[in-house]
């Protein structure tokens, strides 16, 4: 135990005194948060917002002064009504100056209401026509005093809309953990390269205590990253942190373990830090952009989806978002955790198999 803590302290000092490590692992993710925050704090991804319905519709209305339908329309707040004659109403529709043209004509005690609209994709006409039909049918029913057999209740769930920064913050944390795991393992390559592992192999210490102290330090750094990134997001951009501390802790540890194992595995193929850097870049760069940590998966062409679904970072980002924000995501939490566990088991096994002490 004394040896383990001695090594942990040595790793800690050796790493934290390296200014490039401090920059890349702690400052860089924070800079990304600030940068994205400055750009995206107000924007939102369409698919993520539930936005309230506050549109008004323009009606060009032609109706006789005795029309009761016209009175009903005027009492509907979302209708902006312009009363004109029949020809002008149709003209307005032709010129796209109105959403619908409504012509009311009296015919033997009945009012015939014709709703004209341009039936193109963007037109709200169809919606408005149906709405008018419903309103007038309801009015008829009320006046004729029939016994109601059905009653429809509408329950709309109130959802806070997700801003882009809310979406991005958990993704940035996932990215930071990936980089910590992958690039962090290069430390070991450099220890190997500079024969430090060889020197330590001469001392009566177990290799396991050397490695486990390195891994534990990496996990602790991951947690510090989590605290820094989430605090910054919460304090400056009011990103809602809805998840429990335990579950956030859990996903950070799980994610770190996956990428630490993957990092050791990748590093076992290389002899020098430079080569390790190359291999890791090849893996991490596409992963960063394809994993959906910066934008929803639906933004990518469907031909890329199978790749996206193969990347562990996709599931870490998605799981991280669900846990931190308390929203639902692309996959179920069970899927996210199982896939990450799977990746961990496989990469851990491969890392142990291919591990080289010297």
């Amino acid at each position: 135990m004394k040896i383990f803590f001695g090594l942990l302290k040595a790793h800690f000092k050796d790493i934290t005194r390296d200014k490039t490590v401090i920059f890349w692992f702690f400052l860089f993710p924070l800079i990304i948060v600030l940068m994205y925050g400055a750009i995206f704090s107000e924007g939102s991804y369409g698919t993520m917002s539930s936005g309230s319905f506050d549109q008004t519709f323009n009606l060009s209305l032609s109706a006789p002064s005795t029309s009761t339908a016209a009175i009903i329309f005027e009492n509907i707040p979302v209708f902006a009504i312009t009363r004109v004659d029949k020809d002008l109403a149709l003209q307005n529709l032709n010129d796209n100056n109105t959403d619908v043209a409504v012509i009311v004509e009296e015919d033997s005690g009945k009012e015939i209401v014709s709703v004209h609209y341009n039936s193109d994709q963007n037109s709200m006409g169809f919606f408005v026509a149906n709405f008018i039909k419903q309103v007038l049918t309801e009015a008829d029913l009320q006046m004729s005093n029939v016994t109601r057999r059905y009653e429809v209740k509408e329950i709309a769930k109130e959802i806070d809309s997700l801003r882009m920064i809310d979406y991005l913050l958990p993704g940035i944390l996932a990215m930071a953990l990936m980089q910590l795991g992958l690039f962090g393992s290069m430390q070991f390559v450099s220890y190997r390269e500079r024969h430090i592992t060889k020197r330590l192999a001469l001392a009566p210490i177990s290799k396991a205590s050397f490695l486990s102290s390195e891994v534990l330090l990496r996990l602790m750094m991951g947690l510090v990253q989590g605290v820094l990134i989430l605090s910054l997001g919460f304090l400056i951009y009011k990103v809602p942190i809805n998840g429990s501390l335990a579950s956030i802790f859990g996903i950070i540890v799980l994610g770190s373990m996956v990428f630490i194992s993957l990092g050791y595995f990748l590093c076992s193929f290389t002899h020098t830090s430079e080569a390790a850097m190359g291999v890791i870049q090849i893996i991490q760069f596409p992963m960063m952009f394809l994993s959906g940590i910066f934008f929803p998966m639906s933004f990518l062409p469907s031909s890329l989806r199978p790749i996206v679904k193969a990347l562990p970072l996709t599931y870490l980002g998605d799981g991280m978002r669900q846990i931190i924000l308390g929203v639902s995501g692309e996959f179920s939490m069970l899927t996210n955790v199982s896939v990450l566990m799977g990746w961990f088991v496989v990469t851990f096994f491969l890392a142990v198999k291919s591990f080289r002490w010297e």
Partner: protein
Amino acid sequence: MNSIVVKDLRHSYNGTVAVDGISFNVAQGEIFGLLGPNGAGKTTTTEILVGLKKRKAGLVEVLGFDPSDQDEELKSRIGVQLQIPSLFQRLTVKELLNLFATFYPDPLNIEEVIEKVGLQDKTKTISMKLSGGQLQRLSVALALVSNGDLIFLDEPTTGLDPQARRGLWDVIENLKKEGKTVFLTTHYMDEAEKLCDRVAIIDYGKVIALSSPNDLIKSNFTEQALEFDVEADQKAFLHEKLPSVSKIEFNEDKATVYTQDVTKTVAELLAITDNGFRLKSFTVRSASLEDVFLKLTGRRIR
């Protein structure tokens, strides 16, 4: 009682033979020197003895253990200094010594070790900021802090200035006084002559001599050595004019002549100075390990 037993040890790298069947024993409490030029197999032998390399063939016992078993008890009883000082770059001298002290059951006081190797004013310097010589001394300090029964030093004084070298010689002699066994490799013959109780001279992976430095010199030379500068066209002429000399070696513009009778040889030399031969940088000395090496291999060590 032997601290190290080596019998017919062999090692090769991709077919290139590095150690070609060497045998020697190191007695408990002695300073044993493994001598040889660069590439003779010294480092390979040391790395096999400390358990860094698995030997290809032969028998090796260190404090009764086979070092290839990676036994932690053996490791806790030996202190090792390697040629390449490999350390955490951003830890200070003191932090590194403290770290290594936690590895061993009964470490030395680190302040004492720092003083022994003369790094008192560098305790708070991180290792990447140390000079080559300072790193070398730190590396020795890490071997000492183990307080092991057997200390391996692989070319400990290479790259040190003369003062630091002498300081380290004192440290090594003190280890012997404390009853520790020292296994030392070096290509400095004066160092081996001064420190070692016994030396093994190896060349091309084979032991070519094994004894105490004095015995090696005595058994190879009854003569004394005279050295002086010589010009190229005078080399042949010397053989003819110095009948009292048993052997003449030339190394660039330096001549070394071996003689049983110094007075007679000096007289002969003085006689030829009348014929225009000038005696420059003239020294008389006893034969050294260096001469033994030269005689046995036909080469100078450096």
